[in-house]
């Protein structure tokens, strides 16, 4: 707990700086483009549309748990929205510290802010998308008390991505190969999590292997909370396990490697 407190302490002390840094991050990402901030919405819309056309319309995939055309669409949204945010956050954290090396050599800066910004600004799209998803669900009459658990699963997601993001950011400084490796890793995580397919596609007995992907449990939790697709105890335990391992492990690794960072930039 001490570890968490000291690092969250740094973020709280520099709350205003954190806020300005996030503003700069969002602004500079879309600076100079015609679409501007709309890209934050256009990109995921194009991605979701592409997956929907290919899997729902061309390949005619249906999930047994929600058997209709719009059922697959809702299923896709519930898993893809968090995943796009996670993968965007992780991809950008990996190069985040390396990209700021000139700056970090010259200015004393609470570097936690840099990967945290990458992860948190990536949440914006997800939150907007989730609002639309909730509206769709209300229209479809699928309102549920389970929605009250949304903040909990969101917190789980944040801890996991912050931990992994910080680890990738600082490892990216030491091992430059990560910049090449992370996209491959993200592809692997994407296809090995039940986002495009559902649990019923997995042969019985093999589900435990899918839980080795830290985000399988998280995505299943989203499916349960939003769509009511049941999860088992193994999934819940796996979620708790991965939140602890990625959150704590990521912070510890970050803390371990942070003091020598200046020498390797």
């Amino acid at each position, binding site marked *: 707990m001490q570890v968490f407190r000291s690092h969250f302490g740094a973020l709280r002390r*520099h709350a*205003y*700086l954190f*806020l*300005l*840094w996030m*503003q*700069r991050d969002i*602004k*500079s990402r879309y*600076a*100079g483009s015609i679409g501007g901030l709309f890209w934050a919405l256009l990109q995921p819309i194009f991605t979701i549309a592409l997956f929907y056309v290919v899997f729902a319309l061309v390949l005619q995939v249906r999930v047994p748990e929600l058997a209709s055309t719009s059922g697959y669409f809702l299923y896709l949204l519930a898993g893809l929205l968090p995943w796009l945010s996670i993968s965007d956050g992780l991809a950008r954290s990996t190069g985040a510290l390396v990209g700021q090396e*000139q*700056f*970090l*050599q*010259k*200015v*004393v*800066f609470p570097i936690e802010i840099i990967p945290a910004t990458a992860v948190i600004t990536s949440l914006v799209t997800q939150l907007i998308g989730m609002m639309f998803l909730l509206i769709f669900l209300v229209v479809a009459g699928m309102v549920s008390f389970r929605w009250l658990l949304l903040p909990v699963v969101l917190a789980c997601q944040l801890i996991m991505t912050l931990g992994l993001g910080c680890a990738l950011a600082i490892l990216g400084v*030491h*091992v*430059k*190969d990560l910049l090449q490796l992370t996209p491959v890793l993200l592809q692997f995580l994407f296809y090995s999590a039940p986002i495009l397919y559902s649990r019923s596609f997995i042969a019985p007995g093999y589900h435990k292997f899918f839980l080795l992907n830290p985000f399988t449990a998280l995505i299943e939790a989203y499916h349960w909370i939003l769509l009511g697709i049941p999860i088992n105890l193994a999934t819940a335990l796996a979620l708790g396990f991965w939140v602890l391992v990625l959150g704590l492990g990521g912070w510890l690794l970050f803390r371990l490697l942070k*003091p*020598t960072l*200046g*020498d390797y930039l």
Partner: protein
Amino acid sequence: MNPAIRLEHVAKGYRFYQRPADRLRELLWRRPLHTIHWALQDIDLLVQPGETFGLIGENGAGKSTLLKLIAGTSKASRGQVSCEGRITALLELGAGFHPEETGRENVYLMGALNGIPAAAMADYFEQIAAFAELSDEVLARPVKTYSSGMFMRLAFAAATAVDPDILIVDEALSVGDMYFQKKSLDRIMRFREAGKTVLFCSHNMYQIRSLCQRAAWLHEGRVRALGDTEQVVTAYESHEREKQAQYRQQNDAAASDGMAGLSNYRPLAASSSAPVRVRQVTLSGGQSDDVVYLETFQDVAVTVELESVDLATLYHVGIAIVRNDKENIFGTSTHFEPDSKPLQGSRDVILQLPRLSLLSGEYWLSVYVLDDSGLQVYDMAELICPFTVYNPGRSFGFVQLPFQWQL
């Protein structure tokens, strides 16, 4: 009172790996696979509160590394670095500025970085805008549209508007126009007068002299001299001059090899059929091949040893001071003197130059032996006795002229 900055046995090493993979392998197998470059070694330094301390040294001597250790962007490999109070480091002006963001946004971020709370930000911003002398219209533009002068003004203002206990300045004053340089210098002076500690690193010895009470000279990662500014700076400057002279000598050697036949240089010992020959020239004790270091207004004597083969030959001696670009600065000859009589026989000729009025520069001597009419050259030794003049005063140019201010 505790010192503001205290460094004890500080060393900083950078690890180098032959291949990127070695770093990972070292981590995994716990087997050293690196070579260490020591940027700093055995640094002991105390800077008292309220002191303005200068840091000088050649490029690569470790100055910037030392400043980084004190500023906290880098950690010492060994030893202790401790500082009392809030530090603002001007390691690079405008580091942290984003070109796409406006002047205002950049200033706000710098403010937040320096711990200015949101409530005090408007005041902070006004103060900076006033110091940088930039209008609201300019400050609403992205900084990438600024001229470099405007950028530097804003960056300096933003960095120094906070009220640090310790200010670290690395070469920051060498930017901007004269007016702004003066303004920045004034601001540092005000910090000094307010009893703040200033650590100042510069290649400009004039600034070091006029700002700092004490100084340290870093050489190859170690403190070579530490103490009173004047002593440290003087020691450093003479080291620099020696190095330059060595460099020049090497270059001269290379140049004269390549330019054989073009140069009039003649080794003094060479035999000649001349009736009178220059055997040896000494400049204030220095032999003809040594570089002699002189100061402006020093009394200087040139001694020419002459060997006369034919004792009956009448001759004159001319001596010229030649600047290193082969311009004659001053020349005279014994036959220029009123009612002069030609010289005769083997003897020494001494030219006294009391209170040498040359200013800083590098020079040679050229010596000529002329016939009694002064028209024919019997013997000569050109571009010998290299010497370097250093002007401890502040006038500039080639020579000191007699002058007087009427105020």
